C-alpha cells in the first residue's frame, strides 16, 4: 500500500556538499515516524526538501499520490503538509492568538470578498484558534505577545502554528529542542495526543522520546538513510550503534 508520503531517491547538493544523498522514505498514514541521526546528517535539509524551502537536485516526492517535488513553500500547506522549525520561527510581535489565527486563515477558503471583514468577525477561525491553543496548553497566554513567552512556551507555539495549518501530515523538527526534562515530557505527551489524528514525521535527538512514541524510525547519516525499522530493531542495529547510538545523548 502506498505511503502517505513517499520520497524517491531524493538528493540535494549545495555546491560540492552532498547534504542529502539518494534518500528513500515512506511514511504510513496515521503513524509517528521518526528520523534520527547525528548532527549535520542532513535531517533538516531533508525536511526543507519536503516543505519546499529548498528544491532537490534529484529525486521525487509524492504526497497522497500527487507529485509535489519542487512545490514552493507557500503552496505546501495547501496540499496538507505543515511544518515546524528547529530554530523557533514564530511571529514575535503578534499575540499567541494572532500567530495561530494567521496559520488557520491561510488554510481557510476565504474568498477575496472576505478580506473586507474585520479579523474579529471570523467566529469559526477564532474558536478553532482557541481550541488549538488550549490543546497545546497555552490558553493562559492567549493575548500575550509571542516574544514574551519562555523558550518552552515558544516551542509549544511552534506546534500550535503547525496545527493551524490543518495538516494531514505534520513535520516536527526537534520540537523538544532546548527544553528541560519536564517541558520535554509535556511536549512528548502532546505529540502522543496528536498521534492518532495526524500523521507525524519527527526529527528528534532525545532517544527516550523517540523510543517512547515512534512506530517507525529511519536513521540518517551523512545525508543517507542507513537503516530503518521499529524501535527495538533500531536499538539493536549494529550500523546504527556505530554511527550514532555510541554517542548517546
Amino acid at each position: 500500500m502506498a505511503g502517505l508520503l513517499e520520497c524517491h531517491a531524493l538528493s540535494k547538493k549545495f555546491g560540492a556538499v552532498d547534504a542529502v544523498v539518494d534518500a528513500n522514505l515512506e511514511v504510513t498514514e496515521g503513524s509517528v515516524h521518526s528520523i534520527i541521526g547525528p548532527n549535520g546528517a542532513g535531517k533538516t535539509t531533508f525536511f526543507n526538501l519536503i516543505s519546499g524551502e529548498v528544491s532537490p537536485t534529484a529525486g521525487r516526492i509524492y504526497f497522497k499520490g500527487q507529485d509535489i517535488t519542487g512545490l514552493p513553500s507557500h503552496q505546501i500547506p495547501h496540499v496538507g503538509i505543515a511544518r515546524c522549525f528547529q530554530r523557533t520561527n514564530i511571529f514575535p510581535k503578534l499575540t499567541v492568538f494572532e500567530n495561530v489565527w494567521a496559520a488557520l486563515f491561510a488554510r481557510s477558503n476565504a474568498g477575496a470578498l472576505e478580506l473586507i471583514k474585520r479579523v474579529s468577525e471570523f467566529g469559526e477561525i477564532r474558536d478553532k484558534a482557541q481550541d488549538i491553543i488550549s490543546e497545546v496548553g497555552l490558553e493562559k497566554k492567549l493575548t500575550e505577545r509571542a516574544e514574551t513567552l519562555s523558550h518552552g512556551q515558544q516551542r509549544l507555539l511552534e506546534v500550535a502554528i503547525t496545527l493551524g495549518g490543518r495538516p494531514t501530515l505534520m513535520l516536527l523538527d526537534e520540537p523538544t529542542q532546548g527544553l528541560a526534562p519536564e517541558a520535554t515530557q509535556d511536549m512528548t505527551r502532546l505529540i502522543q495526543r496528536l498521534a492518532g489524528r495526524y500523521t507525524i514525521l519527527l526529527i528528534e535527538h532525545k532517544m527516550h522520546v523517540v523510543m517512547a512514541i515512534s512506530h517507525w524510525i529511519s536513521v540518517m547519516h551523512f545525508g543517507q538513510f542507513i537503516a530503518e525499522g521499529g524501535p527495538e530493531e533500531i536499538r539493536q542495529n549494529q550500523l546504527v550503534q556505530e554511527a550514532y547510538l555510541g554517542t548517546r545523548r
Partner: protein
Amino acid sequence: MRERNIYLIILAFILIGPFLQPRVTVTEMLIFGIVAVASNIMIGYTGMLSFGQAMFFGIGAYVAGLLLKAGMPLIIAMPAGILFVLVLSIAVGAFCVPRTGLYFICITFAFNQMFYFIAYSWTDLTGGEDGLAGIPRPSLLEDPVSFYAFVAGVFFACIVAMKRIVDSPLGLIFQTIRENPERAAAVGYNVKLYKWISFTIASTFTGLAGTVYAMLYYIVPIDQIHWLKSGDFIFMTLLGGTGNFFGPIIGAIVYIWMYDTFALFWGRWPLIMGVVFVVVVLYLRGGIVELIGKVRGKNKRTQKVP
C-alpha cells in the same frame, strides 16, 4: 471604545484646526496625513521601506492637474489620477517587490528618480523645473471653506478605508510578513503577492492624496516628485510612530507645522528636520506615539481577543 475616541479627536482637530493655524496649513496636514498613514501600511505593517513614494504622490498630482487644466470635471480628473497611479504602482511593484531589503530600497529610490527626470525633461507636459501651474479648482471648491470641507471629507474617508484594510485579515497577513516572511510562507501565504498588494494599496492612497494636492496651491511643484520628498514621507511616518495606525497622522501634522514655522524664515530648515530625524532614530524609534505612551506611564500593550 478607544478607537471611537481617536476618531472624535480627529474630528475635533478638523473642526478646530483652522482656528489655530492657517486653513491652507491644516489642509496640507490632512493631505499628508493620508500619505503618512498609507506609507505606514508598507513600512509599519508590512516592513517594507520604500524610498520612492513621492513618485506616486507626484504622478497622481500631475495626472489630476493635467486633466483639470484640460477642462475635465473633478469627477473624472480625480478618479483618473487614482486609477493611473493604481496601474502604475502595480507595474512598478512588479519590478520592485521581488527584491528584499536593501535592494528594494535602492530600486524604489531609482524609480523615483527616473520619474523625476521624466517630469523634469518633459517640459511641454509637466512644466519641467517650474512645475505644472495654472491648475483650476472646480467652481464648487473655489471657496476656501468648501475646499477644506472637501479635503477633510476625503481624509476621513481614506482613514476609515485604510483602517478597515489593516483590521481585516489582510492587515494581519502584512504583519506576519513583517515579523517573519519565511514562516508566513511556511503557513501558506504567497509572500510576494501580499507584498505587492501592500505596495499597491499604499501607493494608490498616496497618489490619491496627490490628486487633491494639485488643487491646493493650483500648482504641482516638481520637488513633490523628488526622492527627497520620499524621505519626508518616511520622516513623517517615523516621527508619528510606525507601531500605531493613527500615529503617522501626528507625524504629518508636526512635520507640516515644522515646515511652516521654519521654512519661511530659514532656507536651511531641512537641517532642523535632519536633526529631529537623528534624534528620533537614535532615541525615539516609536515616534511621538511612544513619547505619549511614556508620558502616560503605560506598559507594553497586550491586545484583547477580538
